[in-house]
């Protein structure tokens, strides 16, 4: 990584601008592919683009100094959930049928609604006098995270495990084909 940085510095790019550039690039990519998830005519393509978006988000986590979460994201989301999605797509939708996305009034209305939400959120974000940013936030190391997970937040942890067990059993029951 440091070699690469030196290479870039030589071109007059300070480390800071490089990080910024890469972030904006990745953010742009994620947004582009997010669009693609939504408007792709072939469900399979949108699944793949979702994978790309997830990876993009993982990179964003890196920028926010939460490597553990980035790895978890990649492992759980991209690995597990995306494979699930692709399995279901394979099982259900016949991939080759092109799905027409016709512009009917409802689509327009929802687009307008989404845009409106975006504007409102952005307005709130920019307007909001956020609390003073903590510049030198010490990145939380993993051990401390694990310790707090086990101690203060033990209960939610247990609940989550229980929930996923229930989900597991439920999925099997739903998915099971009745014996005729």
């Amino acid at each position, binding site marked *: 990584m440091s070699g690469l940085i030196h290479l870039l510095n030589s071109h007059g790019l300070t480390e800071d601008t490089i990080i910024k550039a890469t*972030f904006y690039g990745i*953010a742009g990519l*994620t*947004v582009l592919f*997010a669009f693609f*998830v*939504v408007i792709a005519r072939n*469900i399979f393509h*949108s*699944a793949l683009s*979702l994978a790309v*978006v*997830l990876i993009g*988000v993982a990179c*964003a*986590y890196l920028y*926010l*100094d*939460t490597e*553990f979460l980035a790895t*978890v*994201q990649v492992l759980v*989301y991209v690995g597990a*959930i995306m494979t*699930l*999605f692709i*399995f*279901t797509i394979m*099982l*259900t*939708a016949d991939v080759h049928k092109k799905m027409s*996305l016709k512009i009917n009034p*409802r*689509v327009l209305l*929802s*687009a307008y*609604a*989404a*845009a409106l*939400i*975006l504007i409102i*959120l*952005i307005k709130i974000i920019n307007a909001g006098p*956020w*609390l003073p*940013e*903590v510049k030198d*936030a010490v990145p*939380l190391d993993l051990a401390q*995270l694990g310790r707090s997970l086990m101690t*203060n937040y033990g209960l*939610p942890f247990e609940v*989550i495990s229980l929930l*996923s067990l229930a*989900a*597991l059993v*439920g*999925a099997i029951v*739903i998915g099971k*084909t009745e014996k005729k």
Partner: protein
Amino acid sequence: MIPQNHFLILSAILFAIGIFGVLTRKNAIGILMSIELILNAANINLITFNKFQKTPDGLGQIFALFVIAIAAVSAVIGLALVISIYRNAKTILVTKINLMKW
């Protein structure tokens, strides 16, 4: 460094796209995917606040972890449902599934 607002804007965009996806996708799986998008947008928010604001012992991260877990669970159940619908109704296009309509 990248200011906090940019991250929030990114999550807002993702969120909006997710909403649009949920509202317009005809395919049930499409909707589930858009839901994943929305959840990720939420996660970004959590993490940005975790980093920029003073959060006691990484609460944001823990919360994000839980969100991912929940997302996984919901995806599992959702997809199981989609499969059973497909088996019965031979289609997963939301517009066709209106058995519950009065």
